[in-house]
């Protein structure tokens, strides 16, 4: 029989850095979950992405057990990372001169496909490119579709 869900908790936590402070502590602790166990598991599962902000959806069940899904980082964060790598310079520069290629847009779109509300890779790429422009990041080159 399916377990009864008592709460869904949506957080964004840095990889390898979950700790029992707020908001993890109060959000899970009040439901009777063993927070220490959540932190140990989250940190072990995100060892390869230390310091990256990762969205996580935690399902807490009526019997105080839990499970959770870790998603890939949001599009905006992935775009920032790509531009940072590219300019490799001070922060102020990064924001003024940032641009990404369509290949980079595709890479992010492929990574985020499962989480985006898109049916085709092209529509996912359009969403990523739209986010980039709104952020002041230029998408350089010919649109490949």
């Amino acid at each position, binding site marked *: 029989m399916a377990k009864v869900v008592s709460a869904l908790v949506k957080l964004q936590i840095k990889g390898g850095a979950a700790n*029992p402070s707020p908001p993890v502590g109060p959000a*899970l*602790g009040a439901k009777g979950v063993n927070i220490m166990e959540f932190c140990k598991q989250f940190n072990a599962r995100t060892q390869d992405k230390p310091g990256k902000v990762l969205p996580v959806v935690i399902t807490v069940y009526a019997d105080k057990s839990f499970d959770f899904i870790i998603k890939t980082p949001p599009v905006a964060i992935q775009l920032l990372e790509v531009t940072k790598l590219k300019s490799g310079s001070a922060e102020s520069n990064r*924001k003024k001169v940032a641009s990404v290629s369509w290949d980079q847009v595709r890479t992010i779109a492929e990574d985020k496909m499962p989480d985006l509300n898109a049916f085709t890779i092209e529509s996912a790429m359009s969403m990523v490119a739209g986010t980039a422009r709104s952020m002041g990041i230029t998408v350089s080159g010919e649109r490949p579709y």
Partner: protein
Amino acid sequence: MLSISMNYLELVFTVNDPEGFVKDLLIAELSEIDFDTFEDTDKGFKAYIPADKFDETALKDQLAHYAEQFRFSYAINEIPQKNWNEVWESNFEPVTVGDKLHIRATFHPSKSDEFPLEIVIDPKMAFGTGHHETTYLMSEFLLQSEVEGKKVLDMGCGSGILAILASKLGAEELLAVDIDPVCVSSTVENAQLNETDNITSELGDIDEVNDSGFDLILANINRNILIRHMARYAEMLEDEGELIMSGFYEVPDLPIIQEEASKYDLKYISHYTRNNWVAAKFVK
């Protein structure tokens, strides 16, 4: 070593975000200035930072670029440190490891007549109650090891449970170390609860441990930290000394740990698994 003991600030952000990405941008910016965790809300998000790391000028600088383009505001609340885990800690079940060890809380009846070994733990937001696979596996290893008369280091001691078990198994001298002050005081309290008087509890990371010549090192932490500590573990062990590590998975982590250990001539002996979690033993 799982716990950070300090007051936190909660910044409640209200974001005008029709397209849904402004929130992510702000979170990305905040993550670069010591904000460590975020919670989604209907009107924006909440961002969390240890109170002593908060710098409002740095925050305004970091967000200045977006303040021109987007509409958002925030309010600051302070959240005092407390034991967030107390609901779970107030009614957890005791744990038994094989037929030898019973781990219970102060509020459970003693079963010292049924089990040769009994440990009492009052966790207070420190890791290590025997419920987690890694603590269980480390305990299993300890129960099968020759501990009598040994000098033991418990690195990342949490509640102190492993040091206490090693002491009960006859270890002569024990050093329990953690980077978290909550764990250090928890270890002291739990050592008293269990009437073990040969455990020294110290605050710090591996580089702050000056002692060496250990016959046995216990480290239930995580893969990345174990890798970072490995060279020191090898230095601190006596020849023929044993290193038992946990806090990582069989797949994909165990081969990575084994490779790192081999760089320092630590020989892999064996490992136990439980739900993909591993405890592994190496010898110098």
